[in-house]
């Protein structure tokens, strides 16, 4: 009798253990598989999205260069950042990438619009464009009528890059009439990644000076950086759309109560390309009408001009020399403005666009090296699933 009770107790315990095992182990095994399948689907989707973004031109193929682009423009039927002019893969159109810069005065596509165009309703994504290496100015000093600079070139993990080739271009102004751009020869970085040079200016004590440094590593990756002294740019925002340079007001709509600078002329425009050459686009004076604009009145778009071949030149930096007459004092003064040709792109900082994942481990990342305006960067797409 006692042994039968023991038998039953053992049988109940064994069956109970088997039941718990079946309830816990089997679903866990299937859940891991389900999760794995889910992640594989995410990977496939990420790869398709990545290809759609970086290998397709989108529709229309020149959608980034549409002149009167509206925010989330309805004319964009399909999304893609590849350049329509290039036959090689992973060459991006800077006009299209510029339409992802939130706050672009010439309008942009926001995250939800791009998600809609890519058919990513239940997914989130993030696009990152990462520079290939870093360049930091250690010092820029005037030495009589010469300028001395010292810079450090390093990998993204801060390791020094020896034998990188650096060439400097100096922009300086003095008084009303002196505006000069000097280009120096090439110097190489030492084992610590340091390069330095002295560039003759032709004048001493300029009102304004800046160094534009073009650094190339192994002839494959180039970065162009400036040591621009901080200036409060209230003159205009500057963009390039295909071959056209467009200057827009800082205020949208323009503030008509604000006392405008009545007489502003563009004396000089020069652009510095990714291949290291300089192109003087415009030389004007204070008598011209076609190089004059007004900073306080008039429409949002203040000034534009086509420069045939500008896009093919692969511009990276724009140098503007303005001449403004102060309405209160009646005295004129220079203002040099140095900006990136495509704001927020082609610099040493990472460009980021899109949402943020709620969990890092649920994200798929895909990376490739891409070329924008002749410069090599790493494009990274993150994709994750969002609850519907």
């Amino acid at each position, binding site marked *: 009798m006692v042994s039968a009770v023991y038998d039953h107790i053992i049988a109940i315990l064994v069956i109970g253990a088997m039941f718990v095992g079946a309830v816990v182990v089997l679903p866990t095994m299937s859940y891991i*598989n389900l999760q794995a399948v889910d992640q594989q689907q995410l990977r496939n989707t990420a790869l398709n999205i990545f290809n759609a973004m970086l290998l397709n031109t989108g529709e229309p193929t020149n959608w980034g260069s549409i002149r009167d682009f509206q925010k989330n423009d309805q004319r964009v039927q399909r999304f893609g950042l590849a350049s329509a002019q290039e036959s090689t893969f992973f060459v991006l159109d800077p006009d299209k990438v510029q339409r992802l810069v939130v706050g672009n005065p010439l309008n942009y596509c926001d995250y939800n619009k791009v998600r809609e165009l890519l058919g990513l309703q239940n997914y989130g994504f993030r696009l990152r464009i990462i520079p290939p*290496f870093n360049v930091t100015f250690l010092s820029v000093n005037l030495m009589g009528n010469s300028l001395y600079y010292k810079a450090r070139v390093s990998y993204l993990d801060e390791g020094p890059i020896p*034998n990188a080739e650096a060439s400097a271009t100096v922009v300086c102004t003095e008084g009303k009439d002196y505006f000069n751009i000097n280009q120096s020869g090439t110097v190489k970085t030492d084992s610590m990644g340091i390069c330095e040079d002295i560039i003759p200016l032709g004048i001493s004590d300029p009102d304004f000076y800046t160094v534009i440094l073009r650094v190339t590593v*192994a002839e*494959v990756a180039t970065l162009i950086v400036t040591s621009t002294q901080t200036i409060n740019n209230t003159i205009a925002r500057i963009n390039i759309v295909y071959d056209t340079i467009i200057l827009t007001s800082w205020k949208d709509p323009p503030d008509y109560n604000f006392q405008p600078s009545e007489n502003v002329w563009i004396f000089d425009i020069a652009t510095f390309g990714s291949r290291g050459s300089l192109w003087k686009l415009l030389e004007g004076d204070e008598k011209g009408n076609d190089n004059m604009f007004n900073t306080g009145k008039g429409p949002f778009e203040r000034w534009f001009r086509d420069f045939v071949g500008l896009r093919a030149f692969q511009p990276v930096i724009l140098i503007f020399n303005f001449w403004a007459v102060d309405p209160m004092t009646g005295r004129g003064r220079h203002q040099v403005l140095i900006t990136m040709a495509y704001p927020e792109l082609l610099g040493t900082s990472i460009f980021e666009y899109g949402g943020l994942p709620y969990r890092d481990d649920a994200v798929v990342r895909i990376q*490739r*090296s891409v070329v924008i305006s002749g410069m*090599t960067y*790493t494009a990274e797409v993150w994709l994750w699933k969002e609850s519907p």
Partner: protein
Amino acid sequence: MMRNGKKGQMRIIEAILASFIIIFALSFANIFVITPTSPKYEVTELQKLGYNVLHDLDEQALLARFIYNKEGDNITAALRVLLPLDVHFSMTVYDLQGIKTDNTAIFYGDTETFATSKNIASVTYGLVGYATKINDAYQATYEPRIVILQLARG
């Protein structure tokens, strides 16, 4: 009575053995399931990345110059700036007989990564020759090289 009780015990033991067999079969089958976290997918992604970079260098006519002129430092620098920060690499160049043409280490990362990582991608890229300028004319000789680029995440 005792006989029936022992029969019952045997049934329980049989049931336990049967359940163990089922669980064992399921676990065994699970080993062969290729999950996305398995090395195969990560390796494929690294292979694409490596091929993309080598192809870019070749398009710019730099890969052949670096390889045939034995510019190991330049290849290392080029790969370091073109590949993402967390990707470690090791490159070896062979001729058609399978003999190493350059003993300079074209390497970035931790040796431990390559020794321990299960996800090592290998990309093979062929070069047929390199044109050199002789008396103002370019002359190319057929001298194939096989470039093997190994990649791993650090």
